[in-house]
């Protein structure tokens, strides 16, 4: 199990940052991802696998009027 923005999610081997973003339906483009506090650049979302028990922050910035 992993925790994403305070919400518990199932974990499986090979689950990437992109998978989590999809599962959470995070459509917003200005995101900042951290796994256990470590920053993951946007171009690594597809290739970065999340370890079990990880705390994941997907910080949304702001946009719009």
């Amino acid at each position: 199990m992993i925790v994403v923005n305070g919400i518990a999610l199932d974990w499986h081997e090979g689950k990437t940052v992109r998978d989590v973003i999809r599962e959470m339906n995070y459509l917003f483009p200005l995101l900042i991802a951290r796994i256990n506090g470590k920053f993951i650049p946007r171009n690594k979302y597809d290739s970065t696998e999340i370890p079990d028990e990880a705390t994941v922050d997907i910080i949304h910035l702001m946009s719009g009027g």
Partner: protein
Amino acid sequence: MADKNMVTIEIDGNSVSVEKDTTILEAAQSIDIYIPALCNNELVEPYAACRLCIVEVDDGRKTKLVTSCNYPVRRPISVYTSSEKVLRNRKITLEMMLSRWPNVQVIKDLAKNAGVEKARYQHPAVDLNSNACILCGLCMRVCEQGIWENIINFTNRGAERNVRMPYDSDQPHCVGCGACAEICPTGAITMADDPNQPFDAEMIRKAGMRITEEMIRYDEEQCDMRGVGTAHLVEIMDAYDLLPVMNYRYGKHEETPKISSDVFRKHFTSGKPDGCWLGCTMACAKAIENFELKTGPYKGERVLVDGPEYETLGGSSNMGIFDPYFVAEYNFYCDTYGLDTISFSTGTSFIMECYEAGVLDKEKTGGLELPFGAKDAALELLHQIGRGEGFGLVAGKGIRYMKKYFVENFGADPGFVFDIGMEAKGMEYSEYVTKESLAQQGGYGIALKGAQHDEAWLIFMDMVNKQIPTFEDKAEALHYFPMWRTWFGLCGLCKLPWNDIEPADNAETDEPAKVPGHVQGYCEFFEGVTGKPQTMDSLVRMSEKVYNFQRVFNLKMGFGRREHDAIPYRSAGPVTVEEYESRQERYDTQLKEDAGIDPTGMSSEEKVALTRKHREAQYEHLLNAVYKRRGWTNDGVPTVAKLMELGVDFPDVIELVKKHGG
């Protein structure tokens, strides 16, 4: 496992793996091998004009000279960047360039590096100017591909070839962004200096150019502001249950795709940049061209619709209308009548809910049938407001007036209309559902001008990121962001280039939500105009003075105390049972986890009441924390001490706040 998309090549004996179709030049740069590349720039497509970037390529069968800036890598090859053939060829090119442009510094430097001190002949078209145009084509490419304008181009042939604006005149369509001048390697293009004599025009231009460069590089993958403007938020807000639907009862709807940004990109919005100001390269204003009106005084005419922006679209879902043609029509007529699309749509959403709840009927509206989704009647109401006729006379006065009017004239239940009439300080709510973000409820309720999100938009920080869990955290955000965003208003600047585009390294800064790189840019804008250096704190300080002064002004006008920061309950939680049940799991969980009440076995009515009690108390706590952080009394009045600290302690101001316990 070998990746099909990767190719490994050798450059001067070093092996490097790159994605297929990377150019040789990019591959070399990725391993710090230098190749002179005068007409190339990452911001634009290669053009292969200067031929300085030639390299020798060996594909195993034969070798050939190619320009590395536009040669895509597709199979394993060996590249030689300094073979004898390459060096000889490059020398010949540089000697020719030097003979033509002997005083241009970049040419002199490149020639010197290649061992060419002086040309042995004079070019027939020699240009002795040190800022001569060397025909690299970077300016016209950045104008066309980077800025999406097409203002400058080459004219004439041969020796007369040069870069010009059409007809050698000032071009009204040139946005004056300066990208062409910035990218020009010789200084051949200069910007005519600003007539209003800023302290340091160069500083302003450089800060602006950083944003322009980010727009060129990242906008498409970030917010696509140039493509669709703020309309991109429609589908995003729907995905997060934040798009107002049917007077803020719900946050999403299955028909949202009908009014999403894709629809407007395809059918309406012209794919051209459209800035509010000359020089703005964010250019997020959008237009629908040639739109045929179906109603009203201009029925049958083809017009240009300025928009729609997000709020206009969110206003439509709020009225339960998911029809792009309706959106265009109401957008046009609001603009034409001088009405705000937010006030009209939020006001009409309120009317529609009242209609469905039986507060209104056909007789009371003068014949208009106005349930949610009634688009023809909504347009007729809009025209009545424009003409100052019929039910339009009541609706046009806004929700605050209507609430009272419905109670006094139609016997409406005051509790109900006050709960669902979405206004604060007399101003209609803009188009975000705030129920799940306490901080945002404060953002709307405390905002000085009324229920607007332009002081603070904290929903993601609060509800999604959970970055500001305590009352103190929320109060801090409700201090910094309103002050910072007020600063844009003080300076007459637009807020969108602050956080609708993001610098590449923003994520790695300490406080990415503040976009520190852009705050720095605004410090430079201010210093460039006035000559006074600034910091993030000093800008916020400027606002704090004005903000507190405005609060006192509100107080003088009868709007500046705690009671005026109250919000309609629909903003904080579910008013009706139906609303509660539509998100039952969420509300039940919150009752248990946040309020410590076990909802098992309770009726929906009981749960609505308990949720309300909890949420209303939370809001009062929030007000306490925010007032404290801002240096105000518990009644929301700036204290004398605070006003003295800020230097706005004028005698009449002090007298007024003292009267209110400040």
